[in-house]
């Protein structure tokens, strides 16, 4: 079909040149226009195939011989060629669009969470850090020391902090919070003294969502610090869009204990770890 466009254009001068023939009656003109219509594709393809100008001319003469004016074939050739072209362009564009969008969405959607995390501006990935104490995961009793504030992993208490969307209004023990992160929780920490409406904005992202917990920290170096196992992002506004990005990418995904739960943990606040179960263990 694409051939018909240039062929049709080529035909125009030949049709004009044959316009010298005496015009016939109106009815014969419209009937010849149909015969010329029927003839034209073969003529055009012949002309395109042989690329011989006399051949084309002869064909044109044959077609236009009975025709009244050269205008009629020109109009017909426009109607015939642009329609199919528009159709095939539409078919191509729409089909390619659907497939392209589908493929792109599939690729984008199936991006691993690690990639989504890596794309967050300012996030720090401590899983790759050569200091493996940052993300080692043994159980221990009593107070533990952490190199990062807030910590993103490391040895931790036997008991985890309850992370069923719990919004704690006072500081909690790192030893329990780290264990909650091992289970896949995102820990939203904010600097003590943050305005109540700001705290509420954060709480609305946490409350009712398992694998989330939130608590204040004294003298935190930023307004808000988000932690998941091995990852940290510090921001200075509760309206920072990266907070939702962090939660979306890492909540539950960052677990190093797939299937571990958030209920049944410590629900009390206070920065001293609670060694519940130590007596029974004899440790």
């Amino acid at each position, binding site marked *: 079909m694409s051939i018909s466009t240039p062929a049709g254009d080529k035909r125009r001068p030949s049709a004009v040149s044959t316009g010298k023939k005496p015009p016939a009656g109106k009815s014969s003109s419209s009937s010849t226009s149909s015969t010329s219509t029927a003839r034209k594709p073969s003529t055009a393809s012949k002309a395109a195939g042989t690329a011989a100008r006399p051949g084309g001319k002869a064909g044109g003469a044959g077609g236009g011989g009975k025709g009244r004016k050269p205008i009629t074939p020109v109009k017909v050739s426009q109607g015939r060629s642009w329609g199919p072209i528009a159709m095939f362009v539409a078919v191509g564009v729409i089909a390619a669009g659907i497939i392209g969008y589908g493929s792109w969405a599939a690729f984008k959607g199936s991006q691993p969470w690690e990639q989504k995390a890596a794309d967050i501006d300012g996030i720090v990935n401590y899983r790759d850090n050569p200091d493996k104490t940052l993300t080692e995961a043994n159980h221990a009793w009593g107070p533990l020391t952490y190199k990062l504030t807030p910590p993103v992993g490391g040895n931790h208490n036997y008991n985890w902090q309850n992370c069923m969307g719990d*919004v704690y209004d006072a500081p909690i023990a790192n030893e329990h919070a780290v264990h909650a992160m091992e289970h896949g929780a995102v820990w939203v920490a904010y600097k003590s003294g943050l305005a109540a409406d700001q705290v509420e904005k954060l709480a609305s992202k946490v409350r*009712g*969502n398992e694998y989330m917990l939130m608590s204040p920290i004294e003298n935190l170096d930023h307004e808000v610090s988000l932690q998941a196992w091995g990852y940290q992002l510090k921001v200075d506004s509760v309206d920072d869009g990266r907070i939702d990005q962090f939660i979306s990418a890492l909540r539950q995904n960052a677990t190093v204990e797939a299937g571990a739960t958030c209920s049944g943990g410590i629900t009390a606040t206070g920065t001293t770890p609670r060694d519940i179960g130590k007596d029974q263990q004899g440790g």
Partner: protein
Amino acid sequence: MSVSVESDPESPEIDDAVPPARRRFGVAGWLAAGVALGLLLGLVAGLLIVPSFTRPGEDSAEAGFARDMSTHHAQAVEMGMLAHQKASDSDVRTLGGDIALTQQAQIGMMQAWLREWKLGPTGSQPRMAWMPEGSAGLENGLMPGMATDAERAQLRSATGKAFDVLFLQLMIKHHLGGIHMAEEVVKLTDNAEVLRLAQGMVANQRNEVAAFQQLLTKLGG
């Protein structure tokens, strides 16, 4: 001849009428055909070569249900475990353990679906957005039937018969909210696995609500 001249533009059975008719449908007609064919071709090819066309997408009812019901179930597990550990009535203890084990297993199934569908556990839409007018059913951001932070704290501190009664009351409310969500996804999905689990939840939790009510009567709650 002169008759045919007049009837020319209108009469479809005569060859002469074809070219004007073609011109009238012209580009617009071909374009419409092209759009239709393009959509068909794109969808057919897409179904064949793009896997995401055949599985629930990011904002689908199936994904929304899997995520939201996981969260809803997680709270039932929390309350069920509390009952299993501290209820004074043995029937309440048994029911609490049953709920916790069953619903934790169901969370595992729903999370496995999400992984299979290449979707994350956290959606970009608000809770319940997959249900018609679903987000309007949220109370303080909580899905229907979910216990508030205050109710959870109350349950943790309650003991004896008071605990049993509060647990049953909270769990009836929780189950009714869960049944509503499961019924909604049954209406919206044609995914066999989702249907099977959701229909099971509706039937099973209805029976449990009846059992809770009997226990409440027994305990005089």
